[in-house]
């Protein structure tokens, strides 16, 4: 993610420029002249958001304020391979467009655009990827394969009555003969493996060093937590109709929606350290556990990330999810309220929690008000495979894997056929 404060006088002009990248509000033009997203075949999703924080006033509940808080422009996306390679690609092929955007920032790029983007690069505190290692190319090929197999079944009605193993053999023959190209899986870059291993080592080491202290101190820490949880103000007024309209007018054009939310971290070291610990644990789970289609029980999120800004005073949450915001929020409440509480109860105004896990997002109305109120409009949003949900992508992957398997029993073949 690249982030830079916007020059106050330039915010309206920047907003107009971002609008020009859309063919209509909420619908990006993938070939737009500023940054033609569609040309980059390693890019899954990307967005430009102006982080206009309408909840800064909530700081008053803690007797503090954030005068002259910057309004950030953030540019973030998810791609195959290293982020830095993607930035270099952007800097060389879309320099004019990117410069025209970043020219609205406080300290616009000088002679070296790539260098400027690197300097303004903010790594996420934690991130989630629905399916580790699945490339845009693979997604497109698998989608084409699904369509091809569906057409085969539609062409020959006798296939609907034959044994499943026989049908699979027929489909396999047809796919080999006339099906879409299927590239072998992209090799995992060694650098990525090394980084992952190093991350694991340092995390385990840190855990071993920290754990005894945390254990010994746990009664004290728990007491401190409860004191805070009882006293922290809950700030969940209903969002205004105008705010709801400003966000919802950009949503529900694709089967997937972007979500961007911004807010302040509760002041003090205790909450910040809690947050850092939680993010480390979250990052561990997304790197080593939730790598195949689901974040705990939620299977509708393509990508999500949590990013600190303003020296960890404020936090951005950005995700790409299937369905409408209301169903997304219902999923949160019904399936992963505990996970949301772990992170967001360290943010100002969150509904009251107990022991960091309970309550909080379980208070439906307060939670929905909080989320709506902290949502900022995602003005420009691109997704490389419109109309495909995470569930569709998983199905397509299973279809490809099933087709490439040596052998299947009749029962396995029946389950495989049902995917098509």
């Amino acid at each position, binding site marked *: 993610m690249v982030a830079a404060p916007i020059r106050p006088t330039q915010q309206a002009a920047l907003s107009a420029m971002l609008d020009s990248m859309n063919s209509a509000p909420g619908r990006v033009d993938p070939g737009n002249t500023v940054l033609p997203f569609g040309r980059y075949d390693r890019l899954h999703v990307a967005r430009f958001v102006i982080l206009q924080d309408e909840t800064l006033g909530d700081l008053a509940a803690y007797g503090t304020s954030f005068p002259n808080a910057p309004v950030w422009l953030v540019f973030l996306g998810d791609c195959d391979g290293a982020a830095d390679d993607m930035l270099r690609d952007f800097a060389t092929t879309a320099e004019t467009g990117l410069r025209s955007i970043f020219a609205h920032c406080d300290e616009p790029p000088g002679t070296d655009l790539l260098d400027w983007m690197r300097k303004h690069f903010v790594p996420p505190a934690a991130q989630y990827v629905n399916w580790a290692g699945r490339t845009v190319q693979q997604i497109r090929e698998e989608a084409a394969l699904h369509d091809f197999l*569906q057409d085969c079944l*539609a062409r020959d009605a006798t296939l609907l009555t034959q044994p*499943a193993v026989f049908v699979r053999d027929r489909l396999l023959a047809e796919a080999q003969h006339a099906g879409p190209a299927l590239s072998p899986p992209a090799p995992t870059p060694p650098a990525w493996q090394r980084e992952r291993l190093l991350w694991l080592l340092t995390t385990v080491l840190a855990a071993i060093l920290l754990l005894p202290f945390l254990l010994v101190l746990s009664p004290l820490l728990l007491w401190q937590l409860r004191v805070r949880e009882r006293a922290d103000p809950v700030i969940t007024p209903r969002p205004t109709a105008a705010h709801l309209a400003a966000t919802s007018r950009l949503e529900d*054009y694709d089967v997937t929606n972007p979500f961007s939310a911004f807010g302040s971290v509760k002041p003090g070291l205790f909450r910040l350290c809690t947050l850092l610990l939680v993010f480390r644990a979250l990052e561990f789970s997304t790197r080593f556990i939730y790598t195949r289609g689901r974040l705990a029980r939620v299977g509708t999120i393509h990508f999500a990330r949590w990013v600190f800004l303003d020296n960890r005073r404020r936090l951005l949450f950005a995700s790409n999810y299937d369905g409408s915001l209301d169903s997304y929020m219902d999923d949160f409440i019904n399936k992963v309220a505990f996970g949301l509480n772990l992170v967001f109860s360290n943010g100002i105004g969150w509904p009251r929690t107990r022991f960091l896990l309970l309550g909080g997002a379980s208070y*439906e109305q307060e939670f929905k008000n909080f989320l709506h109120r902290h949502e900022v409009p995602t003005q420009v949003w691109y997704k490389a495979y419109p109309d495909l949900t995470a569930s569709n992508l998983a199905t397509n992957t299973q279809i490809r894997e099933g087709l490439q398997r040596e052998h299947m029993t009749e029962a396995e073949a029946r389950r495989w*056929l049902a995917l098509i």
Partner: protein
Amino acid sequence: MTATHPEEADDIQALLWSGYNALPAATFLLLRIQDREAARAWLRKAPVTTIGHLSTHQATALQIALSANGLINLGIAESVVGGFAPEFLSGMATDEARSRRLGDVGANAPANWRWGAQGEPDVLLLLYAETAKLETQVAGIAATVKDSGFEVIGQLPTSDMGGKEPFGFVDGVSQPQIDWSGKRKPGTNADLDYGNLIVRGEFLLGYQNEYGQYTDRPLLPDAAGAALPRAEDQPGLRDLGRNGSYLVLRELHQDVRGFWRFMAAQTDAGRAETLAEHMIGRQLSGDPLLPLQATPIRGVGRDAADRARNQFTYDGDAEGARCPLGAHVRRANPRTGDMPGGQRGLIAWLIRTLGIGRPDLRADLMASSRFHRILRRGREFGTWVPPDTAMQPDCPDPQSGLQFLCLNANISRQFEFVQNAWLSSTKFDGLAGESDPVTGNRLPLRSGSATDGFSLPQQNGAARRLATVPAFVTVRGGGYFFLPGVRALRFLAQGD
């Protein structure tokens, strides 16, 4: 009506309790307030039928609902009106984002509606009567309201199709059973499985909902609302919502000839009904396509007929071999508990909740049906034609459809969710390329991919896919209303 009436029966409009099956004739009147004082005076005395009235024979019944416009035009303070749900305040038709979510685009777009496109009418009157008495009742009420400061801007007639909807299916077969006793505690282990007994607070404001919480509604200080009941959760305040419900009305035109001709064209002679039954997900008689289960389901089985039609879930039919995954009733209520697939015991629950191991990716796509139930009270309109007549080339257009009407306490989590995430979703249950086989608008997605298919899973697992299924249902009107408790109605009408 064998069960004993609930507490506060005299404060609750009877539609919450009954669909008035004993009163087969009905007409809905759309009113505009012209003279505020006169309108208030009439609303203060209007003979609204409550659950309490049902203990004696009623030859006619009247229900009254108000839109957000209506509340404002009655002179209710903005601070009070602002306590109602945002979707009620914004209305069904005037926000394009909402129209997108509801599938009200293309032919269904409000621009093509007969009524409601510019916003809800102020007041909705639902009139029910024994067949011979409706005409007199309607004429009487229409004349009275005209003299009482209202203009009748629309009349939605209905017809009695003998318990069937225009396509010929027995209608209203599955309804949530409301726990009027207030004994059910939501959120226990019992909710891991599907249950049909739903707390009052999902349909009536002022009571605990399925989260064990109170849905937002206007609460007034003691002095301002002395005539209103106290709020259960905040006894210092008066509850304008208590015993009231949000009423969703949608005029749905059904292309009965198109529906049956399509079924006939897709099948061999005599098989049209079977195909239609698979698209609906029930037999024409209302019986399910799946065998009943031996274990009872909480809230199913108030009588043998209900048991025979509703004691089933789709758990044993995960691939849709008996009832297609995208069938209309399966979309409208997937009959899932909080933990589809059934995880028992603390360890299993933990593993499932944390999502570790290799879980079935589909199992959690539609969990927790209990948060998304609606109480349906619709009525048919137009001429009844049986399926085999509708298939004939010379059958005249019966101009029929459904005045879809449902009640719920949270429009966005109940009606809108069902309409958006389940019925019109082109991705329901991991499907692709199809939306609701009956109500879907068939418009392609952004990239041009079709949504007018329908998959019929076969024995070998492969699906027979119907393509270019026409749209059978068109929305021609609609609105969000508030069906107040009687004390709330009188309060709203009392004036300054």
